[in-house]
């Protein structure tokens, strides 16, 4: 009753490789509710996403409130809650050189691509945000950028 019969998340069981229950998805499989991402993690992939990748969200599906919530948690800590590159970690000089969105020629596609794979010092956020959330954040970043360019 105290110990579960089934395998617990993060458990250590001999049946798994390295006794580690936490595993990566089997290669060639995809989680329910996700779709394939066709762009490679290369400069060419970035250029292609920059030019042609568009958001699958309808305008009515974009939820700025949720976008802001997620952005403030995952992006704002470095990029700043306004997107000007002045997050808490930058102000405290822990991480330097975070650009303002206004200074970069970014598009819907490139924003999503960088959230998905990361770029240079920035890591991938694909495992912290699900597909729909990534598009919500992308939409919010675009909104911040147009606000900054004004």
């Amino acid at each position, binding site marked *: *009753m*105290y*110990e*579960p*019969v089934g395998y617990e*998340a*993060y458990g*250590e069981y001999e049946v798994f490789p*390295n006794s*580690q229950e*936490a595993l990566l998805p089997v290669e060639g499989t995809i989680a329910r509710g996700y779709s394939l991402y066709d762009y490679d993690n*290369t*400069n060419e992939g970035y250029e292609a996403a920059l030019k042609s990748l568009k958001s699958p969200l309808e305008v009515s599906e974009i939820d700025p409130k949720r976008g802001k919530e997620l952005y*403030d*948690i*995952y992006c704002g*800590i470095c990029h700043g809650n306004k997107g000007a*590159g002045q997050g*808490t*970690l930058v102000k*405290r*000089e*822990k*991480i*330097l*050189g*975070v*650009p303002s969105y206004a*200074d*970069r020629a970014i598009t819907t596609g490139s924003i999503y691509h960088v959230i998905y794979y*990361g770029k*240079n*010092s*920035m*890591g*991938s*956020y694909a*495992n*912290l*945000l*699900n597909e729909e959330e990534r598009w919500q954040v992308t939409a919010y970043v675009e909104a911040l950028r147009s606000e900054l360019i004004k």
Partner: protein
Amino acid sequence: MKKLRQSLETTPNVDMKQVNNLQPLQKLIFLSLVFFSIFCTPLQAQEADPTKGKSLFNANCAACHQLDKKMTGPALRYVETRLSEDEGLDRDWLNAWIRNSAAVIKSGDAYANKIYKEYNGAAMTAFPQLSDQDISNILAYTAQDKAAPAVATVTTQAPTSTEGGLSKDIILGALAILFALLALGLFLVNKTLRRFAEANEVEIQEAVKRPSLWKAFLKNQFLLLATAIFFLLSSAYFVYGYFMQVGVDQGYEPIQPIHYSHKIHAGDNGIDCKYCHSSARVSKHSGIPSLNVCMNCHKSIYEVAPSTATEEYSKEFYDGEIQKLYDAVGWDDAEQKYTGKTKPVKWVRIHNLPDFAYFNHSQHVSVAGLECQTCHGPVEEMEIMYQYSPLTMGWCINCHRETNVKVKDNGYYEKIHEALSKKYGVEQLTAAQMGGLECGKCHY
């Protein structure tokens, strides 16, 4: 000086035809202008301001470059001298590279292509907005010598004053001697009095022999009963206490394989709990972050600031812990790439509910909108994480009884709130009134 240069540039253009017909005097003036402008150029470089350069560097370059350490791009200390001495590349090449590196690579420049390949094709962002002066400033900053590490100021601490301790010892000693003297005095008085009594032939009455205390106790039925009840009650109390602490680990504070300080991350740096524990928003578990989440920041942060160190934990200690992370995730910090040799970290689980109790994080975090601290306590102040709440059923139920459900802007509860608030005749419903006390909600 700029004017001089301008005039120098315009002169040949405008007077192109006349140049050949220049008078000796004009020639002399022209030559002196040329000489002057050449002489001026290095002067301009000397004017470069490394302080301004530093702020420009931090704003534009530091995401990928550091002075003494390979990052996404190469280390940049003495970059200008290095390029001119080793590669024969001048300032013009650097200017072109900084303003548009992709174009330099495309032009087939040998060194540009070499460095591009060396860093796995990480394309450097173009900085067309940087002026010549800006670039001079930045290069002046990179040309500065490395500041000698600040010599640790050895403060010879005065030996902690032992005065308080000493005086206490003296007082205690004096008291002990006093008591010894008193006891000795009493003993002597007693002895003397007995001697007097003997001398005066006074008979000292011996105590009358009484039945032993134990036998008297056995004869007293009431006392016996009272004692039995007392023993039974107190043993029941201890047995109850023993059973109530089974599986309760409040205050559990295990030593983790990597000393991760929630205080530094969530407190000082204000990183949201959900940044690392992202699955608390959407699933039953508040997940343990996989190490790539650590590397989101620690790819850049390879050491702690001197100000982070405390008396208890030195900078070397914290830097060592970051190194443990690198070893675990297989990150070669000098080469700035993953080696592929990973050693998963075996974190020790702190909060653990028995299998017969169901708990879902997303229900509490996303739907109810609770703060993590409500259950986990002041995590942002914990250097070492510990279990703040008892996680007992009584504790759960208390909270369900006392907490009003947030129904505002919460579509999840719209219907049930409407129905139940009519039934109970109240506007605010507690979690208990919504069914938060039903056994089957948590035990099934």
